[in-house]
């Protein structure tokens, strides 16, 4: 029999983690009932399917009433309509703002406009995430971006205070915001193999080393790159002039660690590798070059290495010696230049190692 009214309301808002997850995942109420049934709720509790359905509908009604408040998490604590215990509130927010790397990977580099929101069915198809969930993730990213975009101070901290997210989740959003702020190129075909965790890793290391240093001033902003540093990187061109010396040092250091064939290859190709790495550094002050950082890294560095099938260890050894040997050279004796080289190479090494996979 179909009931006209069937509601259950409690003084403290009841949140069933399982049903909430299904709701967040974008399941319709009937899909949720099917899912719960498949997980054996009926066998475990002896309830009828009708009871499970009524329970799910109750929860779904509550969640849809709560959704408006979830758009502004601090409001959730202030509002009086729902009495939600703090641990339940944390669960609500955390799960609502949780995102799938695959979905966010698709959104990276795209303009967060309503035009793109319409194209989310493609994303949904590709990632096998329900459209509703894609929309939620899209809206969440857009909302977070809009709020913290022009805010001063640490982006992660801003996200934490404005959305009450846990550290790890806030960092993930921070990376997304950072990539969007710099407008890094991420969607070119050659970059398709990179996952969200790859970009997250790279964005993290760039934010840690290339943005303005947190000196306590309110103007400090880690979504902007340190202009002076990028300009200083031009000075590294000097390394190209001393290419022979650099090559000698590197080859000497790596000889015991490399196979003969690889050594031969390095010996003949060192010039093009160092030109790629140093050339990239010299051009980073141009914003167009900066935006295509990842593409440059793939095209000019990773692809040649892949062609000669370097192992991951080979790459690590090379990058570390390449960096170390430059420091030993007279041309980098100047502290400022040395410092720039360190800052540059830490990030590049970290990014290249992360991105060097199939």
């Amino acid at each position: 029999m179909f009931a006209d009214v069937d509601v259950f309301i409690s003084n403290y808002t009841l949140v069933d983690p399982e049903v909430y997850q299904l709701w967040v995942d974008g399941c319709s109420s009937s899909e949720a009932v099917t899912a719960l049934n498949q997980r054996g709720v009926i066998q475990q509790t002896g309830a009828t399917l009708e009871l499970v359905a009524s329970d799910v509908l109750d929860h779904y009604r509550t969640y849809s009433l709560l959704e408006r408040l979830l758009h502004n998490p601090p409001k959730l604590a202030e509002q009086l309509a729902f009495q939600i215990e703090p641990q339940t509130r944390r669960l609500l927010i955390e799960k609502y703002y949780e995102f799938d790397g695959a979905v966010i990977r698709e959104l990276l580099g795209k303009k967060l406009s309503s035009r793109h929101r319409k194209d989310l069915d493609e994303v949904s198809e590709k990632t096998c995430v329900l459209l509703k969930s894609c929309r939620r993730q899209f809206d969440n990213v857009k909302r977070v971006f809009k709020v913290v975009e022009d805010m001063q101070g640490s982006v992660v901290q801003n996200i934490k205070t404005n959305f009450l997210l846990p550290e790890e989740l806030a960092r993930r959003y921070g990376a997304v915001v950072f990539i969007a702020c710099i407008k890094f190129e991420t969607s070119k075909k050659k970059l398709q193999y990179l996952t969200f965790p790859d970009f997250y890793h790279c964005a993290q290391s760039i934010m840690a080393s290339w943005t303005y240093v947190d000196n306590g001033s309110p103007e400090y902003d880690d979504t902007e790159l340190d202009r002076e540093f990028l300009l200083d990187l031009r000075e590294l061109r000097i390394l190209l002039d001393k290419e022979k010396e650099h090559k000698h040092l590197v080859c000497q250091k790596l000889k015991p660690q490399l196979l003969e064939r690889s050594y031969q290859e390095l010996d003949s190709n060192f010039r093009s590798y160092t030109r790629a790495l140093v050339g990239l550094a010299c051009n980073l002050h141009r914003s167009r070059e900066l935006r295509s950082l990842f593409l440059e890294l793939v095209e000019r560095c990773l692809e040649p290495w892949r062609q000669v099938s370097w192992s991951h260890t080979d790459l690590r050894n090379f990058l570390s010696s390449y960096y170390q040997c430059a420091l030993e050279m007279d041309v980098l004796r100047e502290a400022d230049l040395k410092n720039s080289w360190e800052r540059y190479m830490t990030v590049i090494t970290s990014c290249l190692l992360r991105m060097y996979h199939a």
Partner: protein
Amino acid sequence: MKRNSLTGSDRSSVMGGHLRQGPAVVRPSMNQESLDMMEYPFLTMSKYPPGFIMHLGGTVSSRSVKLLERITNLEEPETRDAWWTEIRMEVRSHARALGCNVVLGYSENTSICDDVCVLSASGTAAVINLQFSTNVEQDTSGQHLVSRVHMHNKELMTTSLDRTDFEREKTTPQKGDFTLPFMQGSKVRHLSDGYELDPVSTCSVCHIPYSECSVPFRVTMLKCAICRRGKVPDVLFTTIELPEGVSTTGKGCFLQAYVCRPKRDCRGELNAKEISDGLPFLEYELHRLLINKLKVKGMNSIFGLKVQVSIGEKMLVGLATGTAVYLTPLPMPPVPKVSADNTWADDKKLTEIQKLLQDTVKKNREVYQLKPLIELEFQSNGRIPASDTEESDDELPDLDLATGNKDTCVLEVDDAEDVDVISLLIDPHPPEGFYVVNTETVPGLDDQEIVKNLQMFTQVWRAKIPTGQPTSVFSKHFHRLLQSVYFKLRRMVPCALCDLQFGVELPEPDELQISVLGMALGLGEPERPSSKLKKKTVVSSTSKEAIKKADECELIFNLDEDHVAPENPAAAPLQVQLGCPRPHSPLRIKIPQSKPHHTPPRERYGVDMTPLSYVPGGKIERYLGNLNFFFIRESTCIREGGGLSGFVHSFVTEVLAIVRAHVTALGGNAMVAYFMSECVLYHNPHKNQGQCLINVGGDVVYVSYYSED
């Protein structure tokens, strides 16, 4: 329920037995003094300090059907006053007929359909101790014959209503624990008081307040199973909470009966007559169902009984809810016996039904740990102890509890519908870890204790039901509602569902609306001294309880009759302990220390709301006022807002939010005695419109929670 032709003439005879000393016995003088000043000696409270209630007479009620049309001037309230006066006078006379001086747990309500109104009033007729609060000074100064009963009373003086209020205002800290012993609902039984001071007090409440011989028709009266002196009825229905100190056996459980009676759809006076003619049958049927269900449960009394009559255009609905309890002084109810006349040829079917009933009763006795006193004694001593009173000889046959009085519960099976009725008597048990009652505490919950509030919940259900269906279809809906509460709260076990309040309405000719309000309470380990804990491991508390009683009987036994072989009084209880088999309850076995249990709260987030009068684990520091709200919400976009369910859901959510805000505004952090007395919903699907009226309220309080120790 409706006992209207009893005459209580000879009052002193019943009393004589156990209140020998003290002026408390002289009742006529008390009547003149205070009770006569009250036009209606009605008390609406349902909980009283121990010793206040002396005898319970039973539930008294009165109903009347009125035509609202008749009132020419709606602003003039006199007519309606007269209606209520009539009803109250009837209730009063019922109580007096039962030899009682007050009506406790009194309530009034109405059900209106078109221009016909049914007014109802009910309560529990009782004899209260009028010396309780007024004669203290006199007692302490003048009396040199201070009986034990009096000492008991004097001690209780501090708990009397006027005094408590007084002392609470002065806030004497050392009195804090003492003044409100009956507010700490978690402890139903104080083993120390009652037993030691007045050994009979655990049963005297159940003794009939009128003389047996004055009853004009055959009523089953038996000797009290504890003291063997007073007379007790075979069943007792009351609207109040289980009084503290009354001895019970096993656990209590929720009991519900519903009757749906079709009626002709007519208007005005005809309609009123139709309802008026149907009501007695409805009430009779409801009563019969209650009695039979109670017997199937294996219990003999109902507390917190609420009967609601709702009138609709095409049907009358009666709903009775209560908490079934096995009162130790009362006899064990016999297993209902099925009979059929010759038209019912299928003998085999009949035997099957009888077996089903027997098995159910057996199962219930196991689940609720119902072991009659006499059986315990028998097992411990190997003999049935002889009764101690003078008339003991002719009493013995009556004590044969399992076989006697079959005529009171014969279920006639004459057609298929009756078979249906029998299946109605058998309710499913709540799932493991749930204890369900409609009183404020769970009677007989010994191995666990209510330690904290979990959730107050409200459920509203409404659906179209085709008219003219048998009651069994009807009961399905009630079961379903309870099932959904169990399902929703399944992660909260072990938990007690207390103060379940049901409301039935018939808003449209073919629509039924049921609302449920209740409180989920967390159960935890009871806090007891270690010595008692040790004892607990040997003997389950139910049997311990019984042992105490057995012990008492032994005591009386020894005093009165000399020829009994001298037993070492210290060893006697031990013997009983050893001989007493542990109740084979699945519930008890499954609750070792390792099982999940709740712990008392350190604090509570936000505003706690509860229909109960107490907050477990907390202490009500201040009462900050009463709130009573009527809210009306109208919507012209029902479909867009998630349908009628969505409309009601968001409205009730908001109503709770507003009430919580008012509680906070008054400086409170909780609301006790929360109620939702009205939930009227109108709906016009064609216009996409809906209106809802809700009446809620309660008492704003400030609660402090105990810290670490």
